[in-house]
């Protein structure tokens, strides 16, 4: 029986490994680039500031992936959300609050349509959301092909509202800079918390795991598979809308090429965090670490600062590969032990 307890924890074990690898990587960065400010607390907080939108979007992605689906439309939804917000505020004088509601509405609309096609018409999620990807990007261009800077006072006030921390660091000139975050970070972390609670403590959350593990079994156990799937994509769409809003708070603009490839960031963050594309396995907290790990890798490269453009890409992927392979090896080892 001891044997089995260990194997149950294999997901948790992998999560621990992932977190440890993250810490190891970060500490290595602090040692290597401590002089370049890598050890500053603000550097760590920047991981959250820069990725607040991605964190929320990746949460939705994780849910979709746990149902054994996928959502590759999130980047386009983000672009559309940013564009609609920017366009309506700047060109149509819409208030910031209304714009936010529009953003969430767009997310929900994507969720409803994609969820319906996936769950009630049994169309493959990849294809449905690929169409969503095309549609969102194209619609962004339909709304406006220009780059629109958001200058709405309320919106900029939200975007620039720093929340100072009780700690900080001294600059080279000896000046104390308190560390800070933006409201986006708070929202993102609240979302993460809510999703963690939902996945662990609600019937809906557990049903998501069940249908991801084996949808026909789940059906026979009396779960309304279609409804759960639909709601998952609905929530996923909503989170994409919300994430798009946070993304927009960070970039304060709308343009056609925005957030290109964001879906891959969301997917890889989920996977690094331990979510399986084949469904049934994954933890929201893991995804959070997935995002942080990707952010740290990027941050390490920027801090290093001497690579040429192509080496940036290569090293970025090499580090990612190193990480994923290490994880895979640990996973294999834990399987063997069993």
């Amino acid at each position, binding site marked *: 029986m001891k044997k089995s307890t260990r194997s149950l924890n294999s997901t948790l074990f992998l999560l621990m490994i992932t977190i440890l690898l993250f810490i190891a990587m970060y500490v290595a960065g602090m040692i290597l680039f401590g002089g370049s400010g890598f050890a500053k607390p603000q550097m760590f907080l920047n991981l959250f500031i820069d990725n607040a939108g991605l964190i929320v979007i990746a949460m939705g992605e994780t849910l979709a992936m746990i149902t054994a689906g*996928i959502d590759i439309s999130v980047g386009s939804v983000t672009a559309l959300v940013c564009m609609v917000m920017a366009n309506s505020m700047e060109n149509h004088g819409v208030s910031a609050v209304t714009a936010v509601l529009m953003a969430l509405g767009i997310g929900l609309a994507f969720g409803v349509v994609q969820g319906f096609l996936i769950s009630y018409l049994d*169309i493959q999620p990849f294809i449905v959301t690929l169409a969503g990807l095309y549609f969102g990007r194209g619609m962004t261009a339909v709304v406006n092909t220009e780059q629109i800077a958001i200058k709405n006072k309320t919106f900029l006030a939200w975007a620039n509202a720093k929340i100072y921390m009780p700690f900080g660091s001294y600059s080279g000139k000896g000046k104390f800079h308190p560390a800070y975050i933006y409201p986006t970070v708070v929202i993102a972390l609240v979302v993460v918390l809510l999703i963690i609670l939902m996945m662990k403590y609600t019937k809906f959350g557990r049903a998501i795991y069940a249908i991801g593990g084996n949808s026909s079994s789940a059906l026979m156990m009396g779960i309304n598979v279609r409804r759960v799937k639909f709601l998952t994509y609905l929530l996923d769409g909503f989170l994409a809308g919300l994430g798009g809003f946070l993304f927009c708070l960070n970039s304060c603009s709308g343009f056609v090429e925005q957030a290109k490839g964001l879906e891959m960031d969301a997917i890889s963050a989920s996977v690094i965090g331990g979510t399986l594309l084949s469904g049934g396995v994954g933890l929201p907290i893991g995804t959070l670490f997935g995002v942080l790990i990707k952010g740290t890798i990027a941050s390490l490269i920027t801090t290093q600062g001497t690579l040429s453009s*192509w080496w940036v890409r290569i090293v970025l992927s090499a580090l990612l590969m190193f990480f*994923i392979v290490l994880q895979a090896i640990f996973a*294999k080892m834990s399987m063997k032990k069993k």
Partner: protein
Amino acid sequence: MSESTAKSGFSFKKLTHMKLFLPIVCLIAVLLSNLIKTPDFFKIAINNGVLYGYIIDVINRASELVILAVGMTLVTAASGGQDISVGAVMAVAAAVACQILSGGEVSTTVFANPYALAVIAALIVATLCGCLNGFLVANLNIQPMVATLILFTAGRGIAQLVTNGQITYVRVDAYQILGSYFPGNPIPAPIFAALAVVIIAYVILKKTTLGLYIECVGINSRAARLVGLNSTKIKFITYVICGFLAGVAGLVASSRIYSADANNVGLNLEMDAILAVALGGNLLGGGKFTLAGSIIGAYTIQALTTTLYAWNVSSDQLPVYKAVVVVIIVIFQSPVFQKWAKGLGKRRTAVPSAAAKGGAVK
């Protein structure tokens, strides 16, 4: 019993025919829609000694996609995942070929090295990329989309590294043949390249049991192992093939523009290739596959793009139309929809086909 066997055997045959039937209908529908705006869409003329016309464009431009779709179909069937690095691998192959031919110069008008050397080297590098993907997926059990994400991001970097971040031009007629015309032949050469790949793929699938093995592994790799199949090896092979084919596609694409544009060769083609596989009626979750379907899917996508150009849809809005058409096609192909459409009289829709599928997979 033998009687019922014979009878249902017949109806089953009809069903398999149905499988390709729908994708073909979709392709034809897309093509015919052109007649509204461009009545001479199907007109083929001889211009300058070569075939000229929209329909030729469709077939010609779809060549790379067809080549990729073949590899993508195999990868999908065996591993239930997709290789999203194919576009980047195309760029790598193009870069290698051009760099060898130009001997490191940014632009050249004579081959610095033999053409064959360049082609072979490009294909070898592309195949090695496939090996890396295959190793990660098959041996290390990393999920395909993420395993191939590595080359997806690194690939273009590698290509730029090879070409030193420049676009390398090979302004030699011989290099342009693969992307244009064989001397004296009115049919565009990429069509032959695609045709050759398809034929070779068919011969391999016909003459070996690779196809069956791939399906087995894709459906139930545990059971496949117990009947003596080497799941790892088979998955690996499909990725190698896919990498190789991406190399071929890269050569064609690079030959069209007689240069290696690391940033743009094969850009976004991976998504189209996956779409082709799905439009062909294949499940992206792996298992049974039809190569013909994927190929039809590839032509459908190119037909759609060409159509939208002919309709003067501005290319930044083109994705909207593409999305709508794709959704219509997949709804049309969805069994649930078909059932609903057929049994309009009946009010009930059945329980998800997932139940009938019986979750034996995974």
